[in-house]
Structures are given as C-alpha cells and as structure tokens.
C-alpha cells in the first residue's frame, strides 16, 4: 500500500495579500462560483467579496516580490477569439503572479472559417485538462456556451456586446479605493452604450452596489429600452454630467464614426467629447475613467485624460491585475479544496 502524504504536496502558504482571502475562507466566502460569466446574478456580498480579495492583491503587486504559489501546478489558458493585448496581458500577469502556468491562445477568425465550431474548440481544450479558461469572444453568449462544454473554471473576458465582468470589477475597485464607497454615487457612463459590454457590466454592478447610473449618448448609440436596465438615459452631455461623482468614458470604434451612427468625428467630439469645459457640470472632485484604449480627440480630450488630479485611467489598469488575481483565486477555491 502506498501512503500519500498530502501535506507534503501542498503548495507553500502564501505570505502576503491573502489576509482577506483567509478571512473569507474562514467564514464561508460569499463568492462560491466555479465560473465568472457575468455580473448579472451576482449579489452585493459576492461583489464585495471579490473586491476585498482584490484589495489584498493590490498591495502585493506593489511589492518587489510579487509571486505567490496559490495556483502552482495549475494551467490557465487565455483563449482570445478577438485580439486584445491589454486584457490578455492583464490576465497573463494575474495568472503568473499566482503561480499558474499561463498559455495564450489567439484563435484567429480564420480557424472558425476552417470549420471548427466553438464547441469543438471547447472540447479540444477540455481534453488538455486546463484548470482555468479565460475567454474573449466577439459574440454575445459565446462564453457561457463554451462553459457548458468544459469542466474547468471559465472566466468571461468579454463576450460580444454582452458582458465584461472583470472590467466592471476593476472599475468598482478603483472607485471604492478613491471614493471609499460605491453606494449613493452618481455615475455617468458616456459614449457608445449600444455596442459596449463594459457599459452593461458596469450598469449591472453599479446598480447592485447602490449607485445611481446615467447613460449619456446620442440616441443612435443607446440600446432600445435602456431604462429597463435601471439607468437614466440622457442625450445632453451637460445634463448627463450634472453632479456626477464618476465620469466613465467609452471608446467609440472608428467604423461607427463616419456617418453610420454619428455624422462625423468632429461632430461627435463637439457634443460628446469630454473636455474640461463640459466637466464643469460634474462635481468638483469628479473622477474620470476610461476602459482603454482611448481615442484622444474623439471621446476624450487628451488634456483631460492626462490630468492626474481627475483621471483614474492608469489606476484602472493597476486594479485590473489585482481584480483578475482575485477572480482567479475565487473561481479556483473549490478546485483547490478538492486537491
């Protein structure tokens, strides 16, 4: 009979950044899901749980020694059907800092043309026994579809115009750290709401946490019946920014600027581009956010974006890595408990 001493195979106990994690584990973590497919359905307690966990990782990431062993021996696959250097790098760093082996897989659309379906891809990857799949796809609902055909944890890194939950979480963490709370804040989300998964996830999260949300855009960039998501829709930027604590700008893609949805870049910038002048309507300490990459001179004046007193854009990038570490940690809790 072979005796296996499980103790010896346990990874060394992580030193920093896990006080919150340890506490959460001690009294049943609120977030106990295997997947993070969206913000929809998450409770305020689950969101707080993830943000608390992320707070710990922010401190860790600022130290010179950043590596933990939490996910040692685990495999994380970044599966991106749509290119995104920033999000992919952020997840890659998050995985590596937790000790996971990270593989990046860029699936060009051409392989879809070659006939492999999303479900084929899912089953192929599943056979490689990854522990976490981070997936971005250009179609709404595609990540949830894939999750039904694999056994590992699945994290949605953006699906079509549906959701981008880690972006909403990192935005929430940025807000909470700067403003000390989310409940009661007035948040104006401005720009291409229609095509934006960032807007949808943020609306869901901010509403769950008790913020007031306004969406500001021309009618051609607002989804039908957007008020049903619990937001106020405003087409006048000045009115939309009134008394705002947070101004969240969205990227407008170039193919949508040339007359199809807005007449021109200069007209869009005139009415909806964020300038210091328009910003006067907001609270004096209003914070400016942007999920990146920015179009300077389209949705945001470069001077505003670079104003370190107002802009939290680089904070967001920093929080992104911490939030993704928290999500990787939380979604693999069950897996690690089984080992």
């Amino acid at each position, binding site marked *: 009979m072979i005796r296996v001493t499980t103790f010896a195979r346990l990874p060394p106990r992580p030193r920093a950044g896990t006080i919150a994690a340890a506490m959460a584990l001690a009294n049943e973590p609120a977030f106990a899901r295997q997947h993070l497919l969206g913000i929809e359905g998450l409770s305020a307690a689950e969101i707080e749980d993830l943000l608390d966990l992320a707070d710990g990782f922010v401190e860790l990431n600022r130290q010179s020694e950043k590596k933990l062993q939490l996910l040692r021996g685990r495999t994380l696959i970044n599966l991106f059907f749509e290119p995104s250097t920033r999000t992919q790098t952020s997840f890659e760093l998050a995985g590596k800092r937790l000790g996971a082996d990270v593989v990046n897989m860029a699936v060009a659309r051409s392989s879809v043309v070659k006939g492999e*379906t*999303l479900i084929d891809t899912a089953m192929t990857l599943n056979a490689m026994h990854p522990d976490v799949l981070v997936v971005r796809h250009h179609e*709404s*609902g595609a990540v949830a579809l894939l999750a039904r055909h694999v056994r590992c944890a699945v994290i949605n890194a953006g699906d*079509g115009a549906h959701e981008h939950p880690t972006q909403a979480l990192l935005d929430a963490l940025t807000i909470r750290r700067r403003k000390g709370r989310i409940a009661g804040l007035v948040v104006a989300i401005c720009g291409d709401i229609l095509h934006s998964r960032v807007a949808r996830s943020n609306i869901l999260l901010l509403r769950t946490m008790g913020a007031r949300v306004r969406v500001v855009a021309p009618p051609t960039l607002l989804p039908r019946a*957007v008020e049903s*998501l619990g937001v106020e829709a405003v087409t006048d930027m000045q009115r939309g920014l009134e008394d705002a604590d947070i101004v969240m700008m969205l990227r407008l893609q170039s193919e949508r600027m040339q007359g199809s949805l807005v007449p021109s870049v200069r007209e869009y910038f005139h009415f909806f581009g964020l300038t210091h002048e328009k910003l006067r309507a907001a609270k004096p300490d209003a914070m400016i956010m942007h999920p990146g990459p920015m179009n300077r001179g389209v949705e945001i004046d470069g001077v505003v974006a670079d104003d370190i007193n107002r802009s939290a854009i680089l904070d967001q990038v920093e929080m992104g890595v911490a939030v993704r570490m928290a999500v990787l940690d939380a979604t693999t809790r069950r897996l690690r408990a089984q080992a």
Partner: protein
Amino acid sequence: MSRPVLIVDARLLDPASGLDRRGGVLVVDGRIAELGPQVTAALAPPGSELVDARGLCLIPGLVDLRASFGEPGAEHKERFESGCLAAVAGGVTSLALLPDTDPPIDDPAMVEFVARRARRAKLAKVHPQAAVTRGLEGRELAELGLLKAAGAVAFTDGFKAVADARVMRRALAYASMLDALVVQHPEEPSLAEGGVMNEGPIASRLGLAGIPAAAEVITIERDLRLLELTGGRLHVAHVTTAAGVAAIRAAKARGLAVTCDTTPHHLLLTEAEVEGYRTFAKVSPPLREETDREAVIAGLVDGTIDAIASDHCPQDQDSKRLPFAQAAFGVIGLQTLLSASLELVFAGRIGLLELVRRLTAAPAAILGLEAGRLARGAPADLVLVDLERSWTVTEKSLFSLAKNTPFEGRTFRGKVVRTLVDGRTVYEAHDPL
C-alpha cells in the same frame, strides 16, 4: 383502390358547415361517401374496415400554409419522407412547401420535381409554392403563369421579403391577372438586417442586435397600399405584432382582399424564451413581447388572422449549437401544429370548431385547395384526435430529422391518433398503454 373505411361513433367537427355532433363517416374510393349521425356500424359495406371512434373527434385533415423541407439542397435537415411523416403525425394532410430550397423553386421543372417527390413519399399532399422573383433575389419576376400551370399554389420569396416596392407592385399586378396569391414575409430588410431577436429590454440586456416590431408593420402597410393600386390577392405570412394585426384589421374593414396567418410559437411563446441564449427560440420573425402575443391571439379570435401555419423550418444540430447570433433561424412545427394550437381552446380563448377552421377550411380556401372539410364527395383526408390524451414533446417523439422545436419538454393535451389521406391510413399512434 383501398378498401372502404367506416368510422363510427366519433364527434364529427366540420367548421365549413358548422357541424359538431356525434356520428360516422363512410369512406369509399378515397372520398367521403356518407357522413352524419345516421352512419352507424350497420351501414358497413362488405370487406370494409370498421373504426370505433368512441371518445374521439373526427376533423378534416389540417392544411398547413407554410413549411420547408431540405430537398433539394439540405437533405440532412429534412427529407420528404421524414417531413411528411411529421406532418401526418401532427394531423396535417396537405401542406404548401416554401420555395427556399437550393436551387430555389423558381422554374416549372422544380415545381414538378417537388410534386413528384411528394407523391413518392405517399404520405401528406404536398403543394409547391414558387418564387415571386427569379432566384428569390427580389429583382425580376419569376414565370408566375408557367409556374402556376405547373402546379404552384402561391408565390412567395419565402423567408425573404420582397423589399423593392416597385417589384412588389408588379408582382401583385401581374399575379392579379392569373388570380394567383402573393405571399409576403412581412419584414423591412434594412431594419431587420443583423438583428437576431426582438428588439427590446431583453435584447438590450443580452447584448444581441434587435429586430424592431416596426419592421413588420412598415412592410404590411406598404403592401396594403400597393394592393389598393393593383387589385389581386395578398397573403401576409406570420403576423406577430400588435401593430401588424391592427393594420390588417383596418385593411379588411376597407374591403381589401388580404388574408394572413400566424404560428403556434407566436401564439404561445414570447421573447423571454431567448434567455440563456437558447437558439431553439431563434426564429424569423422573432418571438415578440407579451403584449404582441396577446394582440395576435385577439386577432385570431376576431378573425383578423385567418389561419395558423406551422412555419416548419428544420435545422440540424450544427446550425443551432452556435453562439446565438451565428445560429440559424427556424423552428420545426408540423407535428405540434394541432396540439400546440389546441392550448388556446383549453385556455378558453377560442372555440374548438373555430380553431379547427383556422387549421383546415380557412387555409384551404386561401390556397384554393379542395381540402379541409367533411362533406359528401370530399377527399377523405381525415384526422382522429383524442382531446383527453396528453403527450410530451421529446426528441424521440418527433419524426422530423431535425429536432429544433421550441416546445421540447412541454406536455400538450390533445393527440392525433389516426390520420387518413384519400381514405388510406397513413399514421396511427401506438398506444403506450
């Protein structure tokens, strides 16, 4: 010729004559020789088959205004044999096939091919509809006269709307000379383009591109104005919105020669079925809001909507197991057409005889078919229905090659137990008891 059949002790339901009473039907040489309360077992001619239909309803075979098979071009989705078996198992004895095949039915030889293939399947009677425009491209008129002479019962571009107003005007005008029926898919393509479900709160939350309800009424109103110019007959396929129903109600009040239909899925389901990105709920036109569904039921009840059609559209697994936006449109519906429609009767929304009319005599009249009634001399296309028997829609219970039903798992009350076409039994339910 098949031997005589004598069905006795049934509840005879014939909407065309208003008949609803206990009695029997004698079938000789494929036609109804005698029917009524006086037809009893004592009348049985020598060598005839006697069917005791106690507790069952006898209705005319259903006439389905719109169904698609996969032949030619997509035989893996549906063959004539599988599609016709699904039809007769659902009580459908006549169906009008759409021309969206590959190649499309826009040539007299193709019309003859369909008729020949259907005869070989020897189940339901299949009537080809032909394209209004060559290649279903919406530009040049197809040979409507020659196609009609070859047997086309109506003209439509199937799942595509005739988008160009001038082409539609000419189609209606030319068809009026032939007394031919033009059937329109009511959807303004430029508004629907890229859309995958009904536009509204659910589409906005799911991040799916929507098709506005207005896309339907815009095409309906335009076509009604054209019909006023041209005369002739227009049939609006699958009306699904409150505004669409209202437009047709007003046109009928003005005396225009317009008819329309809707489908069981638009009568029973709403856009909420799409939640969770369920591609079996992806259908064209899309499932709508509850207020639209209610308006469509009201339209059916007050006679604005003349008929219920299955809009049977088989899709294989590979076309549906995809991200929602990439999945194919369409649901199957031949086998569930009667059972699903009966839900409205059991819910007290419409009388049994009236519902049966919308599935039999009404669509037969729209297509000008000798079908859909119980009458002396009429073809013996008959269906015995057990209104007390329930059945559950499962992959196994469906005869279609494709299984893309939006009603999977649903238990319906009312089941077809036997179907006759021209006096020949083509389907008999195997009693699970």
